[in-house]
């Protein structure tokens, strides 16, 4: 793994270890390698990452910049431009630069595409093409291209660009010139403008983090934490400051077992078809037996009619008894096997029916999650009362909260199994998936039923159910989470 620093002829672009030296400090301080390996084997969602502050990330980036600048004998400012244009991959920069420095500088827009002819300036006065003022030549400056502008115009140019949020992409003022202004050049022209300098540095930092594949800003509101991981995988990360969880790869809500592209496709589809699916948002349905109107006010989909005590499933309105068995098929969509021979109109109707089946379940579990959050709040109040009146301590009742949190985690995964199933090709793999999904769903509803009646349920019984549900969830993820 160690790269010999002195022997450049042996440089290998594929060897990425070199530039990770900085990171190792951040990773190795509390986890031994053996422990990590173990975790990733038993927990399909295990992911190694760190929550860093802006200062820590700044230090991290500066170390990378400094080591590159020492390695290639270039200024830190130039090193930053090169790193930024190569997704902060030091080794790639080093390889390219050693192979062809000119081409590397052109590609990074430091040098113009065609070498600039050195212009021989004969007079001591020049007219600035931007402000059309004639000034002494020493008032002029240029980037690595031939385009001379007066210093005041450069300053104004930078002020205007920074005010619009542009920083690493500020270029020369000439027509069709792509040469970029590196950090030291910009800062030199903003010497006495503290607030603009700060803004500029804030924006460049933001650009650097965004171009760095191993760094992600926490999407939580007003949170400045940056999550850092060496592996770029679609796994869950949770900010240790604001508790926001998201997918490290795409930055959106975590979506296992569905992958980033599929969930994007699904969410776009849902947004496009929102009107068609609107009728689903009903909160009331009629009891299939006595037809009294039942309102859903908990997350559990195992309903019991308040009037006739009939147990039924909120999703399919089927008898709940059939749901507990091996034949639990509420989650599966049964496709019409002869659909290929039907008319285009019938196929379109079938497609909509299929979509609605998955959408309905996706939406329903999302709602259940919210309702179960309310259940948890109510539970908190009730337990508070119990503790106040001397019925045990908070520690005694802790297991109930653990159960509620586990329920939320399981239902969350269950929700995201629906887009996964929707886009799956029919076949034995889909059958296996839907079998496991049905099993998971059944255990989650059992758990939900027990959590809603937590205080009267036997603790051992509840903990047993928790264990079963979580095992089902992990099994499904182990078999289908493909990252």
């Amino acid at each position: 793994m160690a790269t010999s620093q002195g022997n450049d002829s042996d440089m290998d672009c594929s060897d990425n270890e070199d530039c990770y030296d900085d990171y190792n400090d951040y990773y190795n301080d509390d986890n031994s390698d053996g422990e990590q390996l173990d975790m990733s084997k038993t927990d399909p969602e295990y992911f190694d990452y760190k929550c860093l502050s802006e200062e820590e990330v700044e230090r991290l980036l500066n170390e990378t910049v400094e080591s590159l600048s020492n390695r290639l004998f270039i200024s830190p400012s130039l090193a930053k431009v090169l790193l930024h244009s190569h997704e902060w991959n030091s080794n790639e920069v080093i390889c390219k630069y050693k192979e062809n420095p000119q081409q590397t500088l052109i590609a990074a827009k430091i040098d113009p595409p065609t070498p600039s002819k050195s212009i021989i300036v004969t007079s001591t006065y020049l007219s600035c093409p931007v402000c059309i003022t004639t000034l002494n030549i020493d008032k002029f400056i240029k980037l690595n291209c031939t385009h001379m502008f007066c210093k005041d115009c450069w300053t104004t140019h930078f002020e205007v660009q920074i005010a619009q949020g542009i920083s690493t992409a500020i270029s020369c003022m000439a027509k069709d010139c792509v040469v970029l202004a590196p950090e030291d050049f910009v800062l030199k022209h903003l010497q006495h403008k503290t607030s603009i300098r700060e803004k500029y540095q804030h924006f460049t930092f933001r650009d650097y983090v965004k171009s760095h594949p191993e760094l992600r800003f926490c999407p939580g509101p007003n949170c400045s934490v940056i999550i850092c991981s060496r592996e770029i995988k679609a796994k869950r990360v949770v900010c240790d400051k604001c508790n926001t969880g998201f997918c490290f790869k795409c930055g959106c809500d975590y979506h296992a077992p569905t992958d980033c592209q599929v969930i994007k496709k699904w969410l776009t589809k849902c947004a496009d078809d929102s009107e068609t699916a609107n009728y689903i948002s009903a909160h009331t349905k009629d009891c299939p037996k006595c037809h009294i109107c039942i309102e859903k006010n908990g997350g559990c989909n195992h309903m019991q009619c308040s009037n006739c005590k009939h147990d039924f499933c909120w999703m399919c309105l089927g008898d709940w008894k059939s749901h507990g068995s091996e034949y639990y098929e509420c989650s599966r969509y049964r496709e019409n096997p002869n659909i290929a021979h039907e008319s285009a109109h019938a196929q379109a109707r079938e497609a909509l029916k299929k979509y609605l089946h998955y959408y309905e379940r996706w939406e329903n579990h999302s709602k259940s999650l919210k309702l179960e959050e309310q259940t948890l709040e109510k539970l908190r109040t009730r337990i508070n009362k119990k503790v106040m009146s001397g019925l045990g301590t908070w520690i005694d009742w802790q297991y109930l909260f653990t159960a509620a949190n586990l329920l939320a985690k399981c239902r969350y995964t269950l929700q995201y199994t629906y887009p996964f199933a929707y886009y799956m090709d029919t076949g034995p793999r889909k059958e296996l998936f839907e079998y496991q999904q049905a099993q998971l769903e059944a255990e989650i509803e059992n758990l939900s039923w027990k959590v809603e009646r937590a205080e009267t349920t036997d603790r051992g019984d509840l903990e047993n159910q928790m264990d079963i549900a979580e095992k089902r969830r992990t099994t499904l993820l182990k078999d289908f989470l493909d990252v």
Partner: protein
Amino acid sequence: MANIAAQRIKREFKEVIKSEEVAKCAIKLELVDDNYTELRGEIAGPPDTAYEGGNFLLEIKVPETYPFNPPKVRFMTRIWHPNISSVTGAICLDILKDQWAAAMTLRTVLLSLQALLSAAEPDDPQDAVVARQYKENLEMFKLTARHWTNVYAGGPNVNPECDEKIKRLIDMGIEEHQARVALSSYNWDLERATEQLFS
């Protein structure tokens, strides 16, 4: 800053007036007020395009931060073009947005707009309806653009068939421009245009 803007516009105005394009009547520039914050541009439709023979008026507003920011330009003459809104005259052109450079001038802008009339970029549309027609039915697009040039920009190519269809809609109580937009949007299919107007 505002001082630079005025100085520059003064200079650029002279530059355009003296330019060979003005001599050839391809572009024109006029001042609207005395403080150089608003101008009126004019470009001739390029030869061998649907816009040939037409003259297109432009509203040019000079921001205080000019030339560090681009001028704000809009077509005042109605035009049928994928990169120009048929409703507002707003333009989608890179040099009027992020590709602007402080060393560019109003002359550059006018010539670039003229070039845009010769070479549309339907993949970066301002007007989705026009862009779709351009990509799916180029002949229909040319016919429509020529008709608009005739009606709004003084172009020479009269199309009696278009005029006749518009007249039919006017007889049904539709306002003329509204009728033209509906027919243009539906490839001059009178039935579909009527349906859309009365739905």
